[in-house]
């Protein structure tokens, strides 16, 4: 008895895109935790750590944005839901950038706004990563 299976390949997010996107979460999370440590200890080194972790998060998110734009340009990968992902990632980057400027203030001048922004950016990065991995990328049928 012959069974005919119509094979429809659902491709996942490209591994490089996945690494960059998922990498934003620990970087921004590290920044937020460093801010929390600075706020509770006044130990300035935590403030320095947070500043660099934010730059790292922005670099990862920025490269993920580039790959996202490439995806948006390719019909076979432009699936329903990708716009939601795009909005989430872009928002993450923009708020993250404002947070980086906030962290360029000297000493306690970056606080407490910096901590609040850092926490918001962590949530945004989680949301962007969630949508980024959920968005189906439909390959062509073979």
């Amino acid at each position, binding site marked *: 008895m012959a069974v005919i299976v119509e094979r429809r390949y659902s491709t996942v997010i490209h591994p490089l895109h996945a690494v960059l996107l998922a990498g934003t979460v620990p970087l921004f999370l590290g920044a937020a935790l460093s801010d929390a440590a600075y706020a509770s200890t*006044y*130990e300035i080194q935590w*403030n*320095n750590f947070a*500043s660099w972790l934010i730059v790292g998060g922005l670099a990862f998110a920025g490269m993920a944005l580039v790959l996202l734009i490439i995806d948006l340009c390719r019909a076979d990968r432009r699936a329903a839901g990708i716009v939601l992902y795009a909005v989430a990632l872009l928002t993450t980057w923009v708020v993250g950038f404002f947070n980086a*400027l906030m962290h*360029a*203030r000297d000493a306690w*001048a970056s606080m407490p706004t910096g901590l609040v922004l850092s926490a918001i950016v962590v949530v945004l990065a989680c949301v962007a990563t969630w949508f980024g991995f959920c968005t189906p990328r439909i390959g062509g049928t073979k």
Partner: protein
Amino acid sequence: MKRFRLLAIAGLSLVLSACGGNPEPLQYGPNPQLPQPHRGLLPNMTIAEPAEWGDQRPTVPQGYAIRAIATDMKIPRQTLLLPNGDILVAEGRGGGAPNLKPKDVIAGHIKAKGTSPVGGGNRLTLLRDADGDGVYEVRTVFAENLNAPYGLALVDGNLYVANQDALVRFEYRDGETQASSPPVTIADLPSAINHHWTKALAASADGQFLFVGIGSNSNITERGMTAEVDRAMVWRVDARTGAHKPYATGMRNPTALAIQPGTDQLWDVVNERDEIGPNLVPDYLTAVREGGFYGWPYSYWGQNVDTRVRPQDPDKVASAITPDYSLGSHVATLGVAFSTPTMGQKFAEGVFVGEHGSWNRADPVGYKVVFVPFRDGRPTGAPVDFVSGFRGSDGKTRGRPVGVTVDLRGALIVADDLSNTIWRVTPDPKP
């Protein structure tokens, strides 16, 4: 002047724009107007755009003349008049504090555009005008291989030099053009990090003590509180033993010291903190009170609390002294010298102050030498421009004044570390 609007993001510009229509507050004298602290998302930055002097010269008051007595120096900072009229020039560039934040990398790159590309000389140069015609025809290297020398003082044949890491002494005999022996270290000076590296120097009238100005290791404690041990203060060092004690504290960057003639009173000019607005915090001239605390980092201009500092210290704030005389925010006072009647009637009593010029202000200030008139030994009235035109009306900057020294024969010596020139201003004999 280049305006470094780093990003032209719409909307951001609204946040950035400084409070435009407000009149400039009165910023000089004993009671400067202090607006509320304010900072946009980016600090205001207008960096000097260097240009050659060409045929131009700095502007001096009518009845005065200015000439360059030495050019092609290697970052001249402070000068010292020797008893025979020779001039010693300290040349050097110190510092080298590591970048801690992404901001330090970017800001350091931008600020470097406003300074000379020449390497620091790490030496003392001697200038001599043997025949008194105003041309300094002899130029020798008095001493070299020093470590960013800055403050200079001479007492009874002892020439003291404040390097960025140590106070040293040379023997000096009248007429020498070159040091006859290597320097002897009197005392090590705080030099870890050296964010503000210059070590200002003045000797007490009797020569027993040396006062050393030591700048803070940060703008406002962003390198941590532990980096500020032995910083932002004036030391009094025993010239014989090298023993030191803090003479006055809480002075963010005491960049030049002077003893008031005929007294034992020490005065200094101090560079105050940045990044809380174009009209905060005033750089100042003050008589230094022994044991006094002048606020940094906890408060500014007396007891105005700086909320950027954690942990705060209300007790220290309560003890903070208000300085005597504001010279304006961000002018960057780097030189101070008491005048004498030989400088002319209008400038007979008071101090000359060298102002290196601002970076943290959209509308640049400083870039000139001012005269602060004194009456009965105290500053009074408004500062008067004495040497200006370092920043031209074309927006280009041709020089940046640092140290100022009065030649008792009737001349002001100005070191310029952008054009690497020593200027000499004299009352013009032919009016």
